[in-house]
């Protein structure tokens, strides 16, 4: 036998329901904690959702946040946040900072005069400074973007729910969507607790997490359906364990390759998309967890109707698309 790297042994007999109350409790607690955090701490919205202006500065000199702040304080711009950005791909003499200016009263987008003032003030502090990007979003657009983002996540979940419902029995659909909501809410919760910048790309990451998590869950459900036909007498709990163990090696394999690709991206992909990649990376981990510990548990709690049906009746039942071999 040739050498094979195996993260999962060929035969596993893990009882995924052994700690079901603990894992389920942890999941519920995580969801509640996330919701509370979003409600009470809130999210650190980027300009996509809050309006305002971000200016990226770059200089060969070390960023002096205090001096920057001092230079801008006379301009009366209201709330200005300045953060220094670090990235392994920067040259040794490349010092980058991000400035965020709150939306200016009475203007849709920031005026060129304001930007010129800011740039002049910063140039006075550091003559070597340059401004690689300036972005400004008005309150009108940002309000629309919030709704669009919510709509996107809602449409995504609904689409997936309908799809799973058509392909499987309704219990699977409920389990699947519960797992999705769990993944999305906890990811948003992490962004809230650590006050990471939440912008439009994070919403794209959330949608990707939806797609990834459901992908994982559907593969297990697919096999579960096959096994339901094969082992008609086996208790549902044992059947689920058998199915999960059968597909475990694939679940871990795919999670690992995706994880590897995203790790390369988070390290080398630059600071511009780091938040986006982080959301996806976190989503892969939590998506794998929810596949193993959330989706099936809910199906088990709801129970399945396993009375004998002929193929014909099945085809007519509430899951008429179940037998399409696409």
């Amino acid at each position, binding site marked *: *036998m040739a050498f*094979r*790297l*195996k993260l999962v042994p060929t035969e596993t007999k893990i009882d995924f329901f052994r700690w079901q109350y603990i894992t389920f409790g942890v999941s519920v607690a995580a969801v509640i904690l996330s919701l509370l955090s979003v409600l009470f701490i809130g999210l650190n919205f980027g300009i996509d959702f809050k309006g305002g202006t971000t200016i990226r500065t*770059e200089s060969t000199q070390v960023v002096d946040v205090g001096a920057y702040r001092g230079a801008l304080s006379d301009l009366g711009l209201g709330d200005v946040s300045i953060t220094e950005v670090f990235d392994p*791909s920067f040259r040794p003499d490349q010092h980058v900072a991000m400035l965020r200016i709150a939306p200016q009263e009475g203007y*849709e*987008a920031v005026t*060129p005069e304001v930007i*010129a003032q800011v740039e002049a003030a910063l140039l006075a502090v550091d003559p070597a400074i340059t401004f*690689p*990007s*300036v*972005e*400004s*979003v*008005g309150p009108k*657009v940002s309000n629309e973007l919030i709704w*669009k*983002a919510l*709509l*996107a996540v809602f449409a*995504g979940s609904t*689409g*997936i729910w309908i*799809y799973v419902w058509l*392909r499987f029995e309704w219990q699977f659909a409920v389990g699947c969507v519960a797992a999705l909501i769990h993944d999305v809410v906890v990811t948003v919760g992490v962004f809230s607790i650590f006050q990471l910048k939440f912008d*439009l*790309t994070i919403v*794209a990451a959330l*949608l990707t997490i*939806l*797609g*990834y998590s*459901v*992908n*994982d869950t*559907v*593969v297990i459900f*697919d096999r579960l359906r096959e096994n339901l036909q094969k082992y008609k007498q086996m208790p549902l709990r044992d059947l689920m364990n058998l199915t999960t163990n059968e597909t475990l*090696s*694939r679940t871990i*394999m*795919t999670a690992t*390759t*995706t994880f*590897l*690709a995203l*790790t*390369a*991206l988070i*390290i*080398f*992909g*630059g600071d*511009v*998309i780091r938040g986006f*990649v982080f959301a996806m990376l976190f989503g892969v981990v939590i998506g794998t967890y929810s596949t193993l510990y959330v989706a099936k548990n809910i199906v088990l709690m709801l129970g399945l109707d396993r009375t004998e049906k002929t193929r014909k009746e099945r085809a007519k039942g509430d899951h008429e698309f179940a037998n399409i*071999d*696409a």
Partner: protein
Amino acid sequence: MTDTPIWKTLLVWAIVALSLAFAAPNLFYDRVEQHNDAAAAIEKAGGSATPDQAAALAQWPDWAPSGIVALGLDLRGGAHLLAEVKVADVYAARIDALWPEVRDALRDLRDQVGNVRRQPSPEGVLRVAISNPAGLQAAVEKVRTLATPVVSLTGLGSNDIEVSSDNGEIVVQLSEAERVATDQRTIQQSLEIIRRRVDEVGTREPTIQRQGEDRILIQVPGIGSAAELKTLIGTTAKLTFHPVARVTADAGARPGPREMLLPAMDEPNTYYLVEKTPVVTGEDLTNAQPAFDQNGRPAVEFQFDPTGARKFGDYTANNIGKPFAIVLDDQVISAPVIQSHIPGGRGIITGSFTVEESTELAVLLRAGALPAEMTFLEERTIGPELGADSIRAGEVAALVATALVAAYMIASYGLFGTFAVLALAVNIAMIFAILSTLGATLTLPGIAGIVLTMGMAVDANVLIYERIREELRAGRSPGAAIDEGFGKALSAIVDSQLTGLLTAVIMFFVGTGPVRGFAVTTGIGILTSMFTAVYVTRAIVALYIGWRHPKTIIV
């Protein structure tokens, strides 16, 4: 292993070959780009090439595919603006233009309606009072005859204006159908004029798109900043010529009826009272060029079309010795005194311009005036260095990700892992081939989408290989196990990929900018990965089995 029909195998290999061919130009990005630019420039010049262009053209063979992915603003640098056109401005102008017509129509009914006066009213509404209330009905009827049917698909059967009576006054406003039709025209005109202005500056591949009801998205790669773009397209550039009634230093001077008070552009504390109705407008211009006046100061030379030239000629002939205001966007550029009759419709605008300003004004006048003002809702400027950094970071990340995934796949599945890695390489080539052929734009999140696809694309291979392993364990022969593996895994592959595709489609339709770029690459990546994992891997495995005839296989 059952034999796949030969035509199917050939088709798979043909698609692979085509994908590689169409993805290849992206490896020589700069060279192909210069070639394409030169080709476009030569075609524009009617076939004649400068030596530089000929050299650029020779860098890439003509017979080879020359499609390359367009780089998004975040990778190339440039400016992005989202503008909202104030479509309601046009209603007011339309209604104001209606007043003389209404007045003349009612004058014919003077014995019934008495005197006619325009009353103060909100913008876009015309209120007319008549001195004889008994004639109101007749007056309303008469004004209604001025209405014309709206020509549009939706407004069929409705008129352009709505006339009603209110408190003994006649109220005229645009009908709903006419407003919709006007909005449509305003946006179309704005789009056209912005396009002309951006083209005048001559940057590559600008994006100028209508978004939603009354918005226009403008993306111009390679322009220095959004502020620069804004001065180019944000100026209305409405040029009009008015008779001057009086010059004053009083900002609070009260204009008489049918007059308006306008500030001078360059002289502080100078105001002109001019007649509201212009003699000629910029719409009658056929050309405008930067020039110098007889004192060598920068100026703009213009030429009227025949109608404009006649109006201008007649007016100058009749008003020698009187001042004449040249007004740009409600500011008086200058008010020269008419020295003599000016026939032929040629003229020159002098003011205290710099050479840049006169050149810019000539561009704006040539491109025409915007029908309505615009406000800017969103502005982004990305410098070219940041874009270059992002491309570099994306490339490094993609290479490292490929290496990691490849190493892991080969370590896990040995020879079959190598097959999967080959299929993955084909997959990436296919993504680029499709992006290049569609002319899609690659953004930084788009690169992230490709890297993510690398991680997830092997999923289909994993599903198949795990299945083959199980079949082998169940004691099947290599051929049968491979057949079963590919066959049985298919349903799970399609199931799992469809949901990913679904979210990509939703992102594409709901998302803007960066999200869209990500949706495009992940969506295409999912489709191509299904093809490469199932068909290409299978074709490679078939080649291997046909070549080696292994008794046993180890997956």
